């Protein structure tokens, strides 16, 4: 059930550079369970889009099926949304992006949606380097179908029924790194200070940007023994670096301290400021990121933060050499070769 939210305005709310209030980025009231990690991620998306000065109608939000995939209803009501079929959001996003390269595409999925039924599409959208942000709300279970283990559940993780998972987990961030994703990060729904700048950086990235967000399911997988519970993640979270996102028009004032901080300039001139860098990790070096993930796993820790970025990446449109204007703006004058060309073709067929 959904109902209209009362629209009151916080006295301090201010318009962003494109003239929108933060409330303009909200969605309908969530119908998820109270305390569900997914709602926090929705909140972070609202925050990120507001702060990034994205015009809501210039963003399209897409999802598959699951509790996680329901969330696009709960943020950005002024954006077009598409809740597709289970595991197939990547193909919808690909088609949509091919039709109009000028919008921002935000895809939201679950661990069931992306690591099982949709893993083929997940892998191939990465290979193609579609310019989109892809967030997996990862709770280690199938929330919507009532708590079955998912393919990201860790070996030995205990689910609500007390059963321990015996199967090797799929680490979506590691997989994304392996497949050549041009931006990979991991975060935690309970850590907005980390998550919001990561989402902002992902949305600004001119290629495929993947964020695996551990997002506890309070109803089916937040029990003792679950490695996707709030308590477990809080206790075992490691970070690559603290992170701050500076939009392109703001001046950077903080001094650069070698060894301890690093500024990554993005294609639109905005800057990703990384602080307290993990040792032996370099955000431009895919192998170091893969290594750090493996190390953290062997220590039973959850490594979060930005893992990898290639800011000079070539997205699908560049690979396909499409025209600069969106394909959906072309009409018969650009597209139809006309009778003269047809006469020549006919002649060649005689």
């Amino acid at each position, binding site marked *: 059930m959904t109902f209209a939210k009362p629209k009151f305005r916080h006295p301090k709310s201010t318009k962003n550079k494109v003239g929108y209030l933060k409330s303009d980025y909200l969605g309908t009231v969530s119908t998820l369970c109270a305390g569900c990690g997914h709602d926090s991620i929705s909140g972070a998306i609202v925050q990120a889009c507001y702060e990034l000065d994205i015009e809501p*109608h210039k963003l399209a939000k897409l999802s598959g099926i699951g509790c996680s995939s329901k969330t696009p209803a709960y943020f950005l009501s002024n954006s*077009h949304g598409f809740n597709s079929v289970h595991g197939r959001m990547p*193909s919808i996003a*690909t088609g949509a992006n*091919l039709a109009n390269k000028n919008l921002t595409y935000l895809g939201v999925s679950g661990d069931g949606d992306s690591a099982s039924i949709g893993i083929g599409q997940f892998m191939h959208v990465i290979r193609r380097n579609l310019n989109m942000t892809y967030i997996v709300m990862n709770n280690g279970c199938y929330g919507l179908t009532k708590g079955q283990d998912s393919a990201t559940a860790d070996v030995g993780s205990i689910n609500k029924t007390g059963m321990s998972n015996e199967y090797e987990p799929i680490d979506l961030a590691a997989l994304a790194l392996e497949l050549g994703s041009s931006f990979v990060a991991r975060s935690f729904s309970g850590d907005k200070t980390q998550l919001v700048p990561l989402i902002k950086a992902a949305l600004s990235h001119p290629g495929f940007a993947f964020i695996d967000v551990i997002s506890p399911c309070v109803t089916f997988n937040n029990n003792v023994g679950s490695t996707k519970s709030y308590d477990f993640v809080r206790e075992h979270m490691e970070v690559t670096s603290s992170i701050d996102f500076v939009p392109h028009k703001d001046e950077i004032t903080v001094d650069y301290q070698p060894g301890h901080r690093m500024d990554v300039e993005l294609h639109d001139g905005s800057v990703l400021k990384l602080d307290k860098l993990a040792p032996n990790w370099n955000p431009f070096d895919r192998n170091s990121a893969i290594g750090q993930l493996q190390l953290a796993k062997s220590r039973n820790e959850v490594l979060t933060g930005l893992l990898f970025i290639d800011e000079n990446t070539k997205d699908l449109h560049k690979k396909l050499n499409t025209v600069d204007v969106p394909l*959906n703006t072309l009409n018969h004058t650009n597209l139809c070769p006309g009778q003269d060309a047809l006469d020549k*073709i006919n002649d060649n067929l005689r």
Partner: protein
Amino acid sequence: MYSVNDFVIRFANVNGTGSASANGIFAKSIFRLGVPIAPKNIFPSNIQGLPTWYEVRISEKGYLGRRDGIDIVVGVNPQTYADDIASIKSGGYFVYDNSKRLHDSFFREDIHFVGVPMMKLAMDNYTDSRKQQLFKNIIYLGAISALIDLDIEIVKETIAKTFARKPKLIVPNYEALEIGYNYTKENCNCPIDFRVRKSDKTGDSIVIDGNAATALGLVYGGATVGAWYPITPSTSVASSFEKYCHKLRVDKETGKNNFAIVQAEDELSAIGMVIGANWNGARAFTATSGPGVSLMNEFIGLAYFAEIPVTLINVQRGGPSTGMPTRSQQADIISSAYASHGDTKHVLLFPSNPTECFQFSALALDLADRLQTPVIVMSDLDLGMNEHMTAPFKWDETKAYDKGKVLNAEELDEIEVFGRYLDVDKDGITYRTIPGTHPTKGSYFTRGTSHNEYAKYSEAGDDYVKKVDRLLIKWETAKKLVPKPRFENAASKTPYGMLFFGTTNYAAYETLDLLGENGIQIDAMSIKAFPFTTEIFEFLENHERIFVIEQNRDAQMRSLIINEYNYDPKKLDSILHYDGTPITAHYISTSISKALNKSEKQSQAL
């Protein structure tokens, strides 16, 4: 047995030996002589080494369907000699490579054997083995030209045209042609009883395969996004689309593409991309065959229910399962018409020749946008992968694309409340918006779950019923937009009718002549689309007995008619052909004659 411009010739080759080009030149030369041709490839699901056949029906009368019984076999593949020789009609010819002696056991008294040392001639004239192989094909082309009295100058013209882009190949091909031609003239009895003669029965026709025509229709119809996954017999729709796009759709100033083609990871993804692109206002299509459509079912339901345009080309092959991947059938009628779970039905178009492939694929893009629903073009392997003589392509330049009910920013400003699924015009088709159109108006949430007129999630039974009932109003609107059937009426009023669609057309029209010769009067209707238009129902009402001719086992079109029209099954007789070869006029006419004789005898006995 003497026959001019009316016989069937078959080339028996080995897959992967380059025979296709020689065979194509043969058919095209006869066409250029002004004589109608109907070529067919008969090939295995294999790349190299297995037998393939290429058959050409030559018909002054313009009969373009397959005909049983072969008059001449050019046997280049010893593996299949036994079957090839057995397939020849009494009085026919077996033209074979006698570089090696033919074993006595192969001989038949009632046919002629013409030996031409094709391989030996190739070895004598060429040293490199690849050339020996390739030119052997042109040598037999020369030999057969001599035998059927085909003017070698016409063949040369065809060669010149075929290799216009690779002019270096022209003269060597001429030489090989002459080697075969001259040898045969000098050493064999030329011409044989089956001959060709210049005629004027091809008019302004062209020769093209259905898949290339479909692809061209998609280019002209404004498709900008194509997503596909390889599968016989549809693959060449995508490859031809790509070829035509590179020729016709590259922006001259920037060198950039006015199109995007993606070879998807599977058919699920291919149709997902098409749905995403159409949702976002581009014209997108996918092409596949039965197995692909099966995989696409879930998404087809989403597009139907969320009302997103989709253009889907289904080039049917023999099913079920992997079935007969290189043979033709019309066996996906039901699975396409009602594709997906829940109550769904989809617009189908049935092209029967390449000209209609061109028209209907362009039309499909318009109809999909107009009706905001999947539109499936039902081609088949025979149509898609064989060349057909067909009317030239024409494009009405005065017509812009029909993008359907899409609101722009100004229009959105004018309306008070936008309801994505609000039936404003009462034709079942509602207004849609494209993402990015307006800063504050027109955004909505697309979903496959039930929703109300404002695209809001709703589990209310009456919202759901209202929605799916409106889709039936849209279905009624579709009946007014799809192509009407084509009729061919008997000279006098008759209670009998025959009904057919797609590639059955060729054999069906020939059947009318055959039945006419036997004094049987019958009206014919060629169905071009589903949903059925009123003209189809009138035809059904106006006849007492109707033969439904189709190329599947289960009489799928007949079921569709009975189901959609609540039509009396007793009045519909089935003529079914489903061995994977294209249906013939002989098969149809004997089936109808037998059925009518039987009922006449029955009524006499009463």
